[in-house]
């Protein structure tokens, strides 16, 4: 029982990180139908920028929590600028091109960002300085830390902020309209370029926050960390039904839970044949199975063929 609860807690924490990153994928996809493969790298850059800022400020005597706040802000600014430039420089010129061209561009951007990061921060693992004091809590036989509480709280707050933005502001309305029908939205006076740019900027900001979360949770960072994280987050977005905000959130949390529970129980399930290093298989196996039965993801709209 305590293992179950423990894995649920771990899964929730990991899942909220996935959800934050998944939102970046889903917003861009929902509005312009593009898989922004470079989003994982944006998150990675966010983490590394935050490390640099926090380390510098803490060394100069600032309390870690405050330095952390600056770190998040700095990372968010850098990532927003990065997301904006990616769209402006790499994707916008390709909007009319064949479907696969932007995908290859995204992959190219991803390679560029990864190697740029390696040149700036080196190829070694970096330690993420602790932002808050890590206290341990006990609950019904399972334990969790203050860091985990912080991650889930910040994720919940950021996602509520996003929902407010999308459903309660003018920009959000423009975003939803463009996602529904770009041509009609354009006729109604919505500036599609501005909407697409904002989707990239907002998604990147969420990614930066997620990057700091990953850093504080695992306490290390590396220029290659963005790839797998991005892949998992994208999987989460598809699992929930890509293009759908609530779907990305639910997909992220669900994926975190599945992975944690899978890793905890796979040995028992297979009679010891498969060990916990098969954890990464769960994400993809569940994805394939879900899509076999629900081709548009768990919460995706059914896209019927129109004749």
């Amino acid at each position, binding site marked *: 029982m305590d293992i179950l609860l423990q894995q649920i807690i771990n899964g929730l924490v990991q899942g909220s990180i996935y959800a934050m990153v998944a939102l970046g994928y889903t917003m861009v996809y929902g509005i312009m139908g593009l*898989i922004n493969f470079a989003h994982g790298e944006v998150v990675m850059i966010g983490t590394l920028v935050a490390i640099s800022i926090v380390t510098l400020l803490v060394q100069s005597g600032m309390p870690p929590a405050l330095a952390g706040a600056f770190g998040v802000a700095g990372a968010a600014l850098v990532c927003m600028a990065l997301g904006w430039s990616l769209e402006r420089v790499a994707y916008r010129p390709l909007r009319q091109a064949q479907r696969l061209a932007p995908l290859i561009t995204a992959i190219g951007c991803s390679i*560029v960002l990864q190697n*740029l990061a390696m*040149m700036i921060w080196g190829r070694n693992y970096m330690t993420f300085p602790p932002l808050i004091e890590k206290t341990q809590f006990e609950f019904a036989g399972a334990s969790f830390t203050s860091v985990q509480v912080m991650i889930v709280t910040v994720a919940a707050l950021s996602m509520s902020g996003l929902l407010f933005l999308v459903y309660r502001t003018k920009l959000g309305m423009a975003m939803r309209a463009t996602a529904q029908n770009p041509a009609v939205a354009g006729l109604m006076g919505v500036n599609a370029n501005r909407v697409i740019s904002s989707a990239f900027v907002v998604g990147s900001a969420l990614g930066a926050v997620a990057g700091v979360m990953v850093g504080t949770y695992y306490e290390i960072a590396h220029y290659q960390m963005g790839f797998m994280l991005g892949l998992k987050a994208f999987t989460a977005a598809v699992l929930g039904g890509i293009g759908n905000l609530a779907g990305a959130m639910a997909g992220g949390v669900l994926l975190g839970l599945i992975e944690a529970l899978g890793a905890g129980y796979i040995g028992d399930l297979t009679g*010891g044949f498969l060990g916990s290093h098969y954890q990464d298989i769960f994400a993809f196996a569940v994805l394939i199975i879900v899509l076999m039965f629900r081709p548009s993801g768990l919460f995706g709209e059914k896209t019927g063929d129109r004749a």
Partner: protein
Amino acid sequence: MNKWLTPRSSLGLVLVAAALIALPFIAGMGGQAWVRILNFAILYAFLALGLNIVVGFAGLLDLGYIAFYAVGAYTWALLASPHFGLHLPFWAILPIGAVLACAAGALLGAPTLKLRGDYLAIVTLGFGEIVRIFMNNLNAPVNITNGAQGITLIDPVIIGQFKFSATSTIFGITVSGPQKYYYLLVLLALGVILVNYRLQHSRIGRAWQAIREDEIAAKAIGINTRNVKLLAFAMGASFGGIAGGIFAAMQGFVSPESFSLIESIMILAMVVLGGMGHIPGVILGAVLLTILPEALRYAVVPVQKALFGEVLADPESLRMLVFGLALVLVMRFRPAGLWPSPERRRELAEKVR
């Protein structure tokens, strides 16, 4: 038929053939490393043409293509190495590898090919990762793949007494192992080019193009879209399996590291960068993307020294950086690829107008 064999085109053919025959010796002058690079260029061209059937002809976005290559490579590694003490001959292993890869393709494709484009992409990607993870971990409790260490001492291609890995003298000419593999690879590549070409201009090829253009209309005229797509998928997979087998024999060593997602992406990039669906374009893409990173490897350090007098940036990352930039720039300025088919070029020209 005869309209192809005008004096001019026959001369061209002879020149191309002569160039293909001489190439490994020219490359060999710069060291056997260059012959190996050349071999990889051809191997990747083979793979890219296999993927071209899936992506270029049938329009299915496959991001897990490397998994089939892996199946072929591991089939060869397990059936012709001391790992299990099996040493089957090449004419037995290569077909087994192709059939297993084909089966893997059908297994993945049957339930998932109804998914629309991007969903199919992520599912195939996930499948590729699953295959890699299994290869990495199937060393316990029963050691099948030898895990991350991979399998070593794999048999080379041997036909009769003719060993492709060793240097030998034929008619007074010294031919190295890589040079022998070169000729084998060229033969295989010509085979896959022929298959691509003939498929494209056939009943099945037309059905693929129809599905790519308008799937609903294709269904309405009686094309069993699921089967026809599955056919493309399985065919592409079989070619991946054959390429994998040759790769294992040529290297003498396989490990899961060679089958990561980035490899799938590279092969897709070759297809798209070259000119999707256009056979010469795909070959160009494969050759460029194999040679370019290698050439950069040699160029990056001297160029930096000449410009700044010292090595400022880590050559490996700079090399990849340039490579990534090249992908972005080609797509920016030639979105249909470097050498698109004439029809595609026409389409694009119209769009601009």
